[in-house]
């Protein structure tokens, strides 16, 4: 089997946050490779730079965020240096992002249908009726049992899980090839977390998406991802195929992460089972 093409390639990315008083390095030479049609976990504790990496890719660095070196490529397209309008062409139809807190990610003033309509309108030339139909189609695709009712609801009327399904529908509605999921289940109830992860996993394989799954939970990586990169203090300390990294972590930091997660037992049980 030939190696799959790379959907997203981050190479040697360094980002500083510059304020008048100081310059803080937040990413130092980060490289992440996301092969087409796979799910890669980006793991690390809070403040390790996983979200900043995602934001740099989306062109959504916070005020003062400056890319000092490196490259971000989607296929052959270099993203660094693109202006906002050029990035807007890509945000949605090429790459998209699911946020951590679905309740605050949706615009509170508009119904689900209206915001999905606006998101479609930003990239596709469709009439209103067609936008409505497409919105419902994607709500159904995101596993919402009654798309009609949810389409007419305001975000605050939805449960967290339902809202995250809407966010996922919104992120996918312009048919991106790459989806960045930034801790998509952290703000949700434990039972709902699993449903959302299952949904993302099935969408990933059905739509052959390339997914960058940002998480601090190694359990999620173990279950759903193909490969992972471990980040610590603005650097990728270890990267590789899931099985290899989780079973034989080379870096002490990865070993600590695994030891701290419930994975150590699960991993052993699995190993024992598969042996």
């Amino acid at each position, binding site marked *: 089997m030939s190696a799959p093409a790379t959907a997203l390639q981050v190479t040697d990315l360094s980002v500083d946050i510059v304020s008048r008083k100081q310059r803080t390095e937040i990413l130092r030479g980060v490289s992440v490779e996301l092969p087409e049609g796979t799910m890669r976990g980006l793991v690390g504790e809070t403040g390790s730079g996983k979200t900043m990496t995602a934001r740099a890719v*989306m062109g*959504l660095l916070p*005020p003062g965020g400056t890319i000092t070196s490196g490259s971000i490529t989607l296929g052959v397209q270099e993203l660094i240096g693109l202006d*906002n*309008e050029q*990035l*807007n*062409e*890509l*945000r*949605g*139809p090429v790459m*998209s*992002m699911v*946020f951590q*807190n679905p309740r*605050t*990610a*949706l*615009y*509170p*003033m508009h*119904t689900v249908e209206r915001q999905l309509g*606006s*998101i479609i309108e*930003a*990239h596709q030339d469709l009439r209103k009726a067609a936008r409505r139909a497409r919105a419902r189609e994607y709500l159904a695709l995101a596993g919402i049992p009654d798309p009609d009712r949810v389409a007419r609801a*305001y975000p*605050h009327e939805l449960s967290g899980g339902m809202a995250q399904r809407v*966010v996922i529908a*919104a*992120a996918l509605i*312009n048919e991106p090839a790459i989806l960045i999921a930034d801790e998509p289940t952290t703000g949700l109830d434990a039972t709902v977390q699993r449903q959302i992860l299952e949904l993302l996993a099935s969408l990933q394989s059905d739509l052959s998406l390339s997914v960058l799954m940002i998480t601090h939970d190694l359990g999620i990586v173990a279950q759903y991802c193909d490969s992972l990169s471990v980040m610590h203090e603005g650097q990728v300390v270890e990267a590789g195929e899931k099985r290899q990294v989780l079973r034989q972590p080379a870096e002490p930091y990865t070993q600590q992460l695994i030891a701290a997660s419930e994975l150590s037992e699960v991993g052993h049980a699995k190993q024992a089972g598969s042996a």
Partner: protein
Amino acid sequence: MRARRIAVLLLRRLLFMIPILFGVITVTFFVTRLAGGDPAYLIAGAFATPEVIAEIQAQIGTDKSIGQQYVNFLSGAVRLDFGEAIFTGNPVQDDLGARLPATIELVAFSLALGLILGVSSGVFAARRRGRKSDKTVNATSFSLLSLPDFWFGLILLYVFFFKLSWAPPPVGQLSANDPSPTDITGAAVLDSIITANPAALKAAVGHAALPVVTLGVLLAAPISRLTRSSMLEVLQADYMQFGQACGFPKSRLRRYGVRAALPPVVTLAGIIFSILIGGAVLVEVIFSWGGAAQYAATAIIQSDYPAIQAFVFVAGAISVFVFLIVDLLYVLIDPRVKL
């Protein structure tokens, strides 16, 4: 469903107005009397005999016990009959009816100007947070906040009337020799528009310009500051980032942001409007506006009980009504508001 709930809310709030207004006029009645000063003495003059004074007291009803006066006042107020103003001799409701439109027009135009200046500068400052332009807006609004309205009005008069002669003299809504519109509402600009009288409209707008600019510019300061802080919060909200991540063009993001930042500004506008009905008094006086606030100020100086009471009642009623409208607007602009 939502329409029916709005109707129920409206009805409930209208019913609530009754006890609120009852409370307002009761408090006014007693506070006016606590302040002391029987207007009979003022009317009669310094050299009046006790008989004359007693006669005047009987005429205006201040000879009766406070309780009796209160009952008389209430029974009139129910029929919107507040008695005769002691100094004009007209029924108070007629006096106020003639002056209130001028005040409302002044306040409404000032608030509109304040909202335009305040919201746009607040949004502008928030989008340029920390930059020089933000700091300039901030410093300007901060200094405007500490500026007394009468002083600012006088400066404007000095510059634009006295020095430059761009503005007409401060003689009210119209000068004596101006073409005047047929009196329909009593608000000169509105009447000129209703009667399609461009000459009168030009004169009325000219006269309204300075007082409206005085109040409008000063009102812009608190509105600008509130808009800025509300907008800053919105700009950091997840949904703005998500909108960007979905490839929304800048123009749509801007509309999203302003729309989400507006609800608190609507509340502030309502508060300002109801305060200004009586609060624009100094500006009314400076420009001889002849509005209700100026009338009330004169009434207070002259212990004109009926006039004071009626004004407080009307101002209270307008406040309650404005807050009702604010609540309704809230329901319309923010879907999260529970009915």
